């Protein structure tokens, strides 16, 4: 390995990157845009507040108190629907997924129950809902839970089953803090994979590698400079993502040496896969298609954007076969939980994978022309 040769190659690659706006956009700006968009979308998930439309047909002090209780205890944001409206039509016309109807006799029935004039008196609240809505079930479950709590309190007896929540974390982490390590892993993967595929295909097809093979640069120098280049880009991209995340979302993630370790392993693994692809795929379009076929399932099934616990069992098993899963989990173990042992375990797995793939990539890299 010749430092002078490796650094010369690295400088040329970095200058090319600096002068290539598209590459700059996809490596640095795109992951940041992703963080800003998803971070904003899921910001509400951390401080849950659901819109609830209520049609109060009773219009009494008791019904008003009931609505107020829902607002305070249930974290619902209440919107009123006029008593003259047809609730079903109103929901259809205004594209609402749920309207809660408080019936006319609400206060009367409540008083009978409280005054024990009719101890078994009950009131039926009506849910007008749109079953095609994906979020209405969650909203109805929250509402049911809140109503169950009210029923319990009205009984005047303390509940038998109580519970206490103890988080395994020192604090509650937010979705964005789960999301950032995943985006870092994903961005490094795509930059390394596509960067290697595109660059190698271009240099092969333009004959630049043929020219380089007549100079003292060796295959090892070439691959090493490629790794250094991708690692440098990954660091720049990660720093940019973290700066934006701290600045905009005030994230609370641990910055430690594990980030560098996982980024490096991520780079080695996917540069290796990129090198193998360019060996076996002849056309650049086919190589990009093959890279897409590898990266897309990885992005969505390896838990970059959402926890794999949300996926069906067989997909969770499948996720365990994806290298990106171990980068995601390793970064989260170190950045969120500060769990060095878990980080070490994940690093060992992705490290072995990266070593094998990278070795195969070196073997697969064509230096002498094969016609």
């Amino acid at each position, binding site marked *: 390995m010749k430092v002078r040769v490796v650094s010369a190659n690295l400088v*040329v690659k970095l*200058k*090319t990157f600096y002068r*290539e706006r598209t590459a700059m956009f996809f490596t640095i700006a795109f992951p940041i845009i992703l963080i800003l968009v998803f971070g904003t979308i899921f910001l509400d998930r951390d401080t849950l507040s659901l819109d609830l439309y209520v049609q109060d047909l009773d219009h009494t002090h008791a019904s008003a108190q009931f609505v107020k209780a829902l607002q305070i205890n249930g974290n619902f944001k209440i919107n009123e629907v006029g008593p003259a409206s047809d609730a079903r039509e109103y929901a259809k016309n205004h594209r609402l997924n749920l309207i809660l109807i408080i019936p006319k006799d609400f206060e009367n029935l409540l008083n009978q129950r409280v005054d024990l004039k009719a101890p078994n008196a009950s009131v039926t609240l009506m849910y007008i809902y749109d079953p095609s809505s994906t979020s209405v079930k969650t909203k109805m479950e929250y509402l049911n839970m809140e109503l169950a709590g009210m029923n319990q309190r009205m009984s005047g007896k303390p509940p038998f089953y109580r519970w206490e929540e103890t988080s395994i974390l020192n604090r509650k982490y937010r979705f964005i803090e789960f999301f950032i390590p995943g985006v870092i892993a994903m961005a490094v993967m795509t930059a390394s994979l596509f960067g290697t595929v595109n660059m190698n295909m271009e240099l092969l097809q333009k004959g630049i590698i043929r020219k*380089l093979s007549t*100079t003292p640069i060796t295959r090892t120098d070439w691959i090493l400079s490629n790794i250094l280049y991708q690692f440098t880009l990954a660091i720049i991209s990660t720093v940019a993502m973290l700066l934006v995340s701290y600045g905009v979302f005030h994230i609370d993630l641990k910055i430690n040496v594990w980030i560098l370790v996982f980024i490096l392993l991520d780079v080695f693994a996917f540069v290796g896969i990129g090198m193998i692809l360019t060996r076996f795929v002849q056309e650049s379009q086919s190589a990009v298609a093959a890279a897409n076929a590898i990266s897309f399932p990885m992005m969505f099934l390896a838990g970059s954007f959402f926890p794999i616990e949300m996926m069906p069992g067989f997909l969770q098993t499948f996720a365990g076969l994806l290298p990106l899963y171990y980068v995601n989990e390793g970064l989260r173990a170190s950045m969120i939980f500060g769990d060095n042992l878990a980080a070490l375990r994940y690093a060992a797995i992705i490290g072995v994978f990266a070593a094998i793939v990278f070795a195969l990539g070196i073997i697969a890299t064509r230096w002498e022309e094969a*016609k």
Partner: protein
Amino acid sequence: MAKPAEHAIEVENLTKRYGDLLAVNGISFNVRKGEVFAFLGPNGAGKTTTVEIIDMIRTPTSGKVRLLGMDVTKEKLAIVPRIGVLPQDFSSFDRITVRETMQFYSRLFSRAHADIDGLIELVKLKDKAEEQYKNLSGGLKQRLGIAIALVNDPEVVFLDEPTTGLDPRARREVWEVLLGLKKKGKTIFLTTHYMEEAEILADTVAIISKGMIIATGSPGELVENNANYLVLTLQSAEANAFEIIRKMGFEPVHDNHQDLKVRVEHTEDILKALNAIKDAGGSFLSLDVRRPNLEEVFLKLTGEALHVGPTEGGEVL
């Protein structure tokens, strides 16, 4: 330890096979130090395969190649710093400037003190030194390729079709650069399918066809040995000129411009033919007598035309 070599390049029974295709078929030749050696042949003749084996881009199927006295299959690391290569269809990094490209290659050869400005000037790219590669024309790109091939001050320079695809003006600009290198005494191995290029630049020409060398010598020797006749081209006002010459026992043809072309063995035959037309009352609108060129030598030896594109030389008779 490499022995001092009399020849810069020694090729013996070189063969290259791609599956069933025999691209190079047991060729042997030597290139003296300081000479310009041209490999002349049509596309697919085996020129590039041969040069790429010698400059170590490819490996041979069999045979021996010694470059500067060293075996190319065993001593690549020792040979590479002493040669310069302009591969076929040379290309470089699109967004890197001419000067940066030169600096990059000089660093690859660990030549901290390479005369980059001098080389840029040599290939007449001084005005384009800060221009990115993608903005250069085809001719300028080739000139940059030649400058890169010289960045390590090589003893042997390989130029694989350095002017293919260039317009006539750009081609002549590249020739000027190569003539400058020739004056400096560099050993140059050139492949081309332009006979004019070989005639102007080469000390020795090897004609290659279907993977085999079919003739070797200086351009003059090749013509002398293989096409020892003269070509008379004329345009006459006499309508029967064609018939008059044919009756004299010659085999005239009309070329693309409807000029009359006649191959003759001796200068006296020219006078006879011209006098016969004159005696018949004819006059001449144009007249040209010349020796055959390598194009005609190639045609005679192989039965196929050398050019794939428009020619710059005379018509093939």
